[in-house]
């Protein structure tokens, strides 16, 4: 059943296209010259072209992949297959198709043909030697075909035709010039593709909104099985049990119409007096009620009451959205207020929450003690409302809400500039402070550097002293090595284990110990440079 929700083109869509089309068809078409024809031959017709464009042909040839797409599968009518109400004048008949001309053209020999028919006839003839199908007069391809007199086109436009879907039930009969419009846009009997996505069968436009009707049902009365879309036609025209007598008046009528008959027409059905909505209790057969109606005052009043009722309902329906709108606006306003004055968010008596309600005696209390008086509005913008009830409605606390909001805006702007200046002042102070601090730190660093340098000098001195000591010690040990190598190695080992703290430097000897020293001095030099 989801197919039932297939969108039906909005009605104003159709209306729009009708008005535009009719305006383009209004008035007499201008004479068509041969260049028009040439243009139409080469480039195809333009949709909604100039008012003078020959309507049936332009519309037909513009056939519009675009329109066909948007309209489902509507096919433009073939003018050669039309059913004319009256036998057309023989002068309007094309000698090739034997139908009234469709987009007629003229040859220099004064023979007239449908554009299509002439093209078909010329298809068979070799290029460059086209002749008139009637008199074989040679045609000048540059000049011909010529346009036809306007009166001929108008006579053709005025021919009465039936809708091509008349066999499906369309009762439309109108001038031929309106046919394209009717078939492409309005005909309710035009076949379009079934709205169901999985169904490709054709269905009348008028049944399109009912969803797919291509399933079998059985007639309730004769139990014949048939497609749902044919059910109504069957019950109207072919079902053998389609007639039933009315239970009240025993008139024979179609079963389909029985309910409508009883509800609206049947003279014997029991109905209430139309005054019942005002309270008349009378109820009888329809005929009798009709007599009663002329005398019943309540029946006379009933239409007015019904009108009134309808009006009240309309107004109530209109009232509902208004209430909702006011609620939304009030919410929005209080949101704005809370945003503007967060400090007052919980202060329900703040004037902005309901500036119009000055009846409330608490609306403007004496200003409470606020820790941040700067964020309050200047007191002048809130003149105390008169507590006088008579004046309250004519004189709200502000000229208008806009005025109030403007005041708020101004004070906010002041506030903003104040904050901005405070901010810049603060920034200056802070940068000053940072500079001072920087200076101090720099000085301190210089001090530290000097101290380190002193220490380095001392260290150097100590190192060289130690080295000196070691060289003298090694000189004495080499003297003892001459005595016994075994004892020397033993003492060396013992000295190595005995002095673990200085061992690293002493074991490697001066050659290995020098680079760290030099590196140390390098770094010192760098430090002092800084």
């Amino acid at each position, binding site marked *: 059943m989801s197919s039932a929700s297939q969108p039906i083109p909005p009605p104003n869509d159709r209306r729009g296209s009708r008005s535009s089309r009719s305006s383009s068809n209004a008035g007499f078409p201008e004479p068509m010259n041969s260049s028009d024809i040439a243009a139409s031959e080469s480039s195809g017709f333009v949709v909604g072209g100039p008012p003078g464009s020959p309507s049936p042909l332009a519309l037909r040839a513009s056939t519009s992949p675009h329109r066909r797409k948007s309209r489902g599968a509507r096919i433009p009518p073939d003018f050669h297959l039309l059913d004319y109400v009256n036998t057309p004048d023989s002068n309007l008949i094309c000698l*090739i198709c034997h*139908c009234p001309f469709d987009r007629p053209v003229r040859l220099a020999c004064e023979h007239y043909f449908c554009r299509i028919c002439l093209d078909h006839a010329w*298809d068979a003839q070799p290029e460059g030697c086209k002749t008139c199908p009637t008199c074989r007069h040679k045609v000048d391809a540059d000049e011909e075909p010529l346009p036809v007199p306007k009166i001929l086109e108008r006579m053709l436009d005025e021919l009465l035709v039936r809708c091509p879907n008349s066999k499906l039930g369309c009762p439309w009969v109108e001038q031929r010039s309106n046919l394209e419009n009717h078939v492409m846009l309005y005909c309710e009997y035009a076949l379009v593709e079934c709205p169901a996505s999985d169904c490709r069968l054709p269905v009348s436009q008028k049944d399109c909104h009912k969803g797919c009707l291509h399933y079998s049902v059985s007639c309730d009365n004769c139990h014949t099985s048939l497609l749902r879309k044919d059910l109504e036609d069957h019950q109207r025209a072919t079902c053998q049990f389609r007639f039933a007598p009315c239970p009240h008046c025993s008139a024979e009528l179609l079963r389909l119409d029985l309910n409508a008959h009883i509800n609206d027409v049947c003279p014997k059905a029991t109905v209430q007096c139309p005054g019942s909505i005002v309270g008349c209790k009378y109820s009888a057969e329809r005929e009798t009620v009709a007599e009663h109606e002329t005398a019943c005052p309540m029946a006379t009043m009933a239409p007015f009451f019904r009108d009134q009722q309808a009006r009240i309902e309309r107004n109530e329906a209109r009232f509902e959205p208004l209430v909702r709108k006011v609620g939304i606006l009030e919410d929005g306003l209080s949101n704005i207020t809370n945003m503007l004055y967060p400090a007052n968010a919980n202060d329900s008596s703040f004037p902005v929450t309901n500036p119009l309600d000055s009846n409330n005696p608490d609306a403007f209390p004496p200003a409470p003690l606020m820790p941040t008086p700067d964020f309050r509005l200047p007191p002048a913008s809130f003149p105390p409302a008169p507590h006088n009830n008579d004046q309250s409605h004519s004189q709200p606390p502000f000229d208008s809400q806009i005025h109030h909001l403007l005041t708020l805006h101004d004070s906010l702007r002041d506030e903003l500039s104040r904050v901005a200046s405070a901010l810049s002042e603060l920034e200056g102070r802070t940068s000053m402070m940072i500079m001072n601090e920087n200076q101090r730190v720099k000085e301190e660093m210089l001090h530290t550097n000097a101290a380190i340098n002193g220490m380095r000098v001392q260290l150097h001195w100590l190192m060289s002293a130690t080295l000196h000591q070691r060289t003298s010690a090694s000189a004495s040990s080499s003297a003892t090595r001459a005595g016994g190598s075994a004892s020397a190695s033993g003492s060396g080992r013992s000295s190595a284990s005995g002095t673990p703290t200085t061992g690293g430097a002493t074991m490697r000897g001066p050659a290995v110990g020098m680079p760290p020293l030099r590196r140390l001095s390098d770094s010192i030099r760098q430090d002092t440079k800084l």
Partner: protein
Amino acid sequence: MSTGAKKRILREYAECQNDPLPGVKINFDEQNMTKWEILMDGPDQSVYAGGHYKLEINFPNEYPFKPPVVSFKTKIYHPNVSNDDKGSMCLGLLRPEEWKPPNKVISVLHLIRNLLIEPNPDDAIELSIANDYKTNRAEFDKTAKDWVKRYAK
């Protein structure tokens, strides 16, 4: 065949019915409207008087841009009708180069009828019959009447 052409054939049939030629009957089948069956009586003033001729008119797909094809189903001794099982007739407006789209079937029927009344030996398809017709009219009439009795009763 296009629906437009079918429509035209339908209209032409209606026209023939509205304005019937004497002694001509058309059997028209809506399911196969490109083939007309014609029953034509030999015109009283001709040698074919008393004969009943069955003809066929076939409409080509290109109709009305190509001529319809006429053939006699009943044998006839006539200089303009081929003396074979086709019985074809091809002259005047029935020639492809002579045919014009505005021509109508009813004029074809007129042409056939007129040819029965007065054969056209100068545009003959059966030269010997034409020769007979021109030089030995009595012999021609006799054979023709003989054929009417033999084939067209």
